[in-house]
């Protein structure tokens, strides 16, 4: 394996080949493990007609002001569909860039329960075309869709969600693409890596030589990882900021 070829010198080069119409997963949960720099790179690259998969379309309290998120890509007119566990504000006071584009019919928003979203990508990465889950049975989301009863309980059919690209953030990587995450940074990230044809990773620590991560400590194996970029220190690279003291 040519490990060296996985290390890219810039985010721009790592995302250069994304074509119009691609399906892209963005990892992260409440800014932790969110690929902030890759959001910015895809926004700058300009690919259009994208389907974007993510837990939500916004960052959170620790996202620095002006940092890119999916909202920027939406405002650029790059996104035609989102698949998320949140497609509307959760508080009356909250604003979501997505909302006005959905209201105008410019973006289709597919709302998926969070566990179903994760499992659809896990299934895609595991060669499973579809599965049944009890989540959303009896709700608006299940209307007109196939359900089946197993041992007296009703389940909803859900299909695998394969990705063309996964954009994720990791704590450590070696040159072979083996990844380690720190604390709740893991979230969707290793799952999206398995579901994608090409996984691109922004890495917080200096990229380690092959073999520097003990095989027992690898959270995502390098075979799921294709391109890695070291995040530069601020202001060139985007990093979460400490929460404002209340």
């Amino acid at each position, binding site marked *: 394996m040519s490990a060296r070829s996985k290390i890219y010198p810039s985010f721009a080069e790592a995302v250069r080949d994304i074509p119009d119409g691609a399906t892209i997963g963005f990892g992260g949960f409440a800014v932790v493990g969110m690929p902030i720099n890759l959001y910015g790179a895809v926004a700058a690259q300009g690919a259009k007609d994208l389907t974007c998969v993510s837990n939500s379309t916004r960052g959170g309290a620790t996202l620095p002001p002006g940092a890119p998120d999916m909202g920027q890509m939406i405002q650029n007119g790059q996104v035609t569909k989102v698949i998320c566990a949140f497609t509307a504000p959760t508080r009356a006071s909250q604003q979501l860039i997505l909302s006005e584009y959905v209201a105008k019919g410019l973006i289709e928003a597919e709302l998926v329960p969070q566990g179903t979203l994760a499992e659809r990508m896990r299934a895609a990465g595991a060669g499973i075309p579809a599965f049944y889950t009890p989540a*959303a049975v009896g709700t608006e989301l299940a209307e007109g869709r196939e359900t089946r009863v197993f041992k007296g309980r009703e389940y909803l059919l859900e299909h695998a969600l394969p990705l063309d690209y996964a954009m994720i953030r990791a704590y450590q990587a070696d040159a072979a693409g083996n990844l380690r995450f720190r604390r709740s940074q893991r979230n969707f990230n290793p799952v999206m890596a398995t579901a994608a044809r090409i996984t691109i990773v922004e890495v917080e620590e200096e990229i380690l030589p092959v073999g520097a991560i003990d095989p027992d400590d690898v959270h995502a194996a390098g075979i799921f990882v294709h391109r890695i970029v070291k995040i530069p220190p601020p202001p060139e690279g985007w990093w979460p900021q400490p929460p404002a003291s209340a």
Partner: protein
Amino acid sequence: MSERAKGLSRQQMCDRLAMEFGDGWIVNLGIGIPTLCSNFDFGDKEIIFHSENGVIGYGPLAAAGKEDLHLVNAGGQHVTLRPGAAIVHHADSFAIIRSGRIDVTVLGAYEVAENGDFANWKMAGQQGGGIGGAMDLAACARHVFVAMEHHTRSGAPRLVERCTIPATARGVVDLVITNFGLFAITPRGLELKEIAPGVTVDEISAATGCNLIVPAPIPPVRTRSGA
């Protein structure tokens, strides 16, 4: 809250639900009011808090200035880890939920119906919604408890005959705490189990949108000191 609602405080509401947690239970707290359940003093009971983003065994909120930027709970709050904590990825976290390993989830809600349906992902008239992990949790946890204010700001009841906004799950709620009291969903309907201090049964009935079963006498809501 600047304008304190009548009856129980939010912390008292969550303390009362937390008293129902059994020793060794794995507990998942929704965002909003339910997060206050983790402030309860569980004494000798061992409670394991599970967060949908794959954190098992988290502890109190991190002190200001001591936050670990790699570690949040489901609500994005910076928490700490207790000894024995473990981290899993999102698919494994929901495997824990879907396989029935969560003993109780405590969720917020806009409405709970007397048949155990509840709604918490889509406000009236809204396009899209915010489901998060609520549908997975509600469908799969062994118990579903709800913590919410008894009525909306405009005075409309949240305890209703049938949900008027899209449901999160059907027939799953066991127990509801509001600032007015503790309520159980029973095969006969909604039953008042304990009443908040300073609130009358008539006031509760007037602010409730379904038939209310009221046993006599009705005990007061147990508080932390009386646990």
